[in-house]
């Protein structure tokens, strides 16, 4: 047995490689990116034994993994929490069609929104899909989770979610690794008709999925990610999910003086919940994200119901990630003596790098359309250029979700806004902008779409962009008139010319696309140093 210093994400990836992974697909997104980076840079991928690829978006990633599973292989798709919204259609329906080779969906939630627009809890999707889930409590469990999840998936022919949160995904610990086991051979499902979700067949598959739930509950109860430890002081029982278990142990010490139920596998281990609920006067629920378990405990029949405290009762803050201090407060522990925080430091918000091409595009766009709102609205999107919302640029007016810039601009234009401008990055465009652009063409929308093409997925560390410098033919192929596709170089030297081009296209009534193309200075610098992209800067 060897030990390695690994991030939670890297431990999960290594665990999958050592558990016979054959195929991994993902769209980069913080805090999930390093799962796929680790696999991409593994010896198995270098030797051509494991397939690993960045895909156009999370939906295509999960569908490709589903296909690999159909062919008998152990496969996984990885994404951040909001990526699961994009992949929700294959996720929910793959649960009904099922898995053949082990199929894992890794989802990294981002409570506190360190690098996200919301803090949705992926466990809510478990209720929607009836999919089981492993939630590792530490890096060692993150390493063990894929082997267990692949087994569970193959035993019950069902996809399995592995849920991480930011502080496990992005924290290192020493991890003991085991020798790698061989991959599954190619094989096709013996019962392929379950993959045909025609209503008559889907009803049968759905009945099977529903009937499977009690078995999955027993799997959770008996599995290695669930633990129940009795404690002498039954005035309080603790229910702790994932990394919350670590905070509780750190603060209360081992053995825990109170009964404590560690939850690391879903559907919930009902027998253990019944036991702790019936043996304690009061329960404290500690979980990252939503009050998911807490709400279910509050729904117990009245006679079995203890007092349940957690996020819904304010004993734990309703929003934001758990911290040792928040958990200590919830446990009623005295605060440690703390020096007053200094009021001197000024905020230091993230910013575009000096020399970033997006900065030049933002300046040109602001000058071209003039002061808001009389000058129009710039609907923008997810990426480094979202920082164009901050001073000194204040160049964009919206950022909602991947691809929304183009379609919101189109809707606002039809509702009377002029000029309606969209600002979207090259990779966000291929992720979720193509279909919206097709809508613009079909409706001859009066929109101006600026695609900031820095030739990479910059915000997550410089993964290759699926656009691969083909933005112009892609837009032409979708039906934008060739003369309405303009390519500019976002550079201070070109500022006056760029403002002129932007104004011209804004004045045109038909849809036009301006491709502002200059390589990200970070990837250009790395390329000059001969480093592999996305390897150095973990974002």
């Amino acid at each position, binding site marked *: 047995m060897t*030990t390695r*210093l690994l991030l939670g994400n890297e431990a999960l990836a290594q665990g999958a490689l050592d558990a016979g992974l054959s195929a991994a697909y993902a769209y980069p997104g*913080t*805090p999930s*990116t*390093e799962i796929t980076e680790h696999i991409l840079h593994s010896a198995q991928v270098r030797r051509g034994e494991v397939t690993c690829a960045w895909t156009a978006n999370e939906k295509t990633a999960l569908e490709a993994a589903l296909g690999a599973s159909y062919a008998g292989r152990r496969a996984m798709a990885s994404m951040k929490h909001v990526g699961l919204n994009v992949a929700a259609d294959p996720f929910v329906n793959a649960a009904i069609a099922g898995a053949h080779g082990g199929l894992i969906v890794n989802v990294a939630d981002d409570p506190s929104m*360190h*690098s996200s627009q919301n803090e949705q809890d992926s466990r809510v999707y478990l209720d929607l899909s009836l999919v089981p889930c492993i939630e590792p409590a*530490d890096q060692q469990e993150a390493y063990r989770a894929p082997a267990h999840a692949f087994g569970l998936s193959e035993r019950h022919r069902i996809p399995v979610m592995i849920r991480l949160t930011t*502080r*496990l995904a*992005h*924290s*290192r*610990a*020493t991890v003991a690794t085991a020798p790698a086991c061989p991959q599954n051979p190619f094989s096709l499902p013996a019962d392929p008709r379950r993959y045909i979700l025609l209503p008559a067949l889907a009803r049968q598959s759905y009945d099977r999925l529903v009937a499977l739930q009690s078995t999955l509950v027993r799997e959770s109860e008996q599995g290695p990610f669930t633990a129940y430890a009795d404690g002498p002081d039954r005035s309080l029982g603790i229910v702790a999910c994932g*990394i919350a*278990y*670590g*905070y509780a*142990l*750190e*603060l209360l010490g081992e053995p825990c003086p109170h009964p404590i139920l560690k939850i690391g596998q879903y559907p919930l281990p009902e027998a253990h919940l019944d036991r702790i609920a019936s043996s304690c006067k009061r329960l404290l629920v500690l979980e990252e994200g939503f009050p998911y378990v807490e709400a279910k405990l509050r729904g117990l029949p009245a006679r079995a119901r203890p007092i349940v405290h957690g996020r819904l009762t304010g004993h734990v803050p309703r929003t934001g990630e758990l*911290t*040792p*201090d928040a958990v*200590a407060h919830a446990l009623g522990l005295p*605060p*440690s*003596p*703390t*020096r*007053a*925080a*200094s009021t*001197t*430091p*000024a*905020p*230091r*918000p*993230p*910013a*575009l*790098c000096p020399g970033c091409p997006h900065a030049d595009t933002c300046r040109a766009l602001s000058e071209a359309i003039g002061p808001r709102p009389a000058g129009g609205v710039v609907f923008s999107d997810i990426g*480094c250029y979202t*920082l164009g919302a901050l*001073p000194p640029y204040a160049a964009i007016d919206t950022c909602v979700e991947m691809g929304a810039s183009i379609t919101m601009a189109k809707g606002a234009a039809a509702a009377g806004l002029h000029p309606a401008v969209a600002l979207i990055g090259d990779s966000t465009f291929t992720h979720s902008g193509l279909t919206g652009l097709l809508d613009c063409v079909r409706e001859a929308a009066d929109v101006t779409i600026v695609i900031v093409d820095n030739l990479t997925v910059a*915000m*997550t560390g410089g993964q290759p962009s699926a656009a691969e410098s083909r933005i112009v033919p892609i837009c032409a192929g979708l039906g934008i008139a060739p003369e309405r596709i303009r390519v500019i170089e976002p550079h201070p030297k070109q500022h006056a010319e760029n403002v002129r081009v932007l104004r011209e296209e804004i004045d045109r009534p038909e849809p036009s696309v301006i491709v502002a193309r200059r390589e990200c200075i970070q990837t250009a610098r790395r390329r000059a140093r001969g480093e592999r992209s996305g390897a150095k800067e*973990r*974002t």
Partner: protein
Amino acid sequence: MTRNVILAGVGGQGLLALAAIIAEAARLIGLHLRQAEVHGMAQRGGVVQSHLRYADQPLHANLIRMGTANLLLALEPMEALRYVAYLAPDGAVVANTAPMAGIPDYPPLETILAELSALPQHRLVDAAALAREAGSPQAANMVLLGAGSAFLGLPEDALAASIRAQFETKGHAVVETNFAAFRLGVAAANGPT
């Protein structure tokens, strides 16, 4: 023995490499270890911080409780001040005095340094100048490591092995520059401040 170390700086200063070097040194001598860091949007030229914990018994939490850090190691003076509430009553702050002032409302440096100097245990070193003296402006993180090494509770040979492991792919000269920066940091922390 449990050590809680808060590392603070600004994106691009080499803070995560510094954290990785200390973590690897702790791993080399068989300690249990947790190290949390910030990636993504928050890293883009903004604040970067890391929680590093090591101990001779198992650790369960990735994050450090307020008021319990033994050491605050900061590559930037204002960023050091941002985290003083994490310091234990007898905790030490070791900070670079060279500011990264690329924001509109950067407070007066003398105010910052006066507040840091009022803390019971402090070592303030001009890591930027000492890194240049060592031969590389990028080695400020190794100057700071040297300046803080007395508070880390790790043997110097473990730190040296970890520094070597971090830089050896870049060649002998880079390793030696970083060792020189480390030694200048040790000397600066021991000298008059």
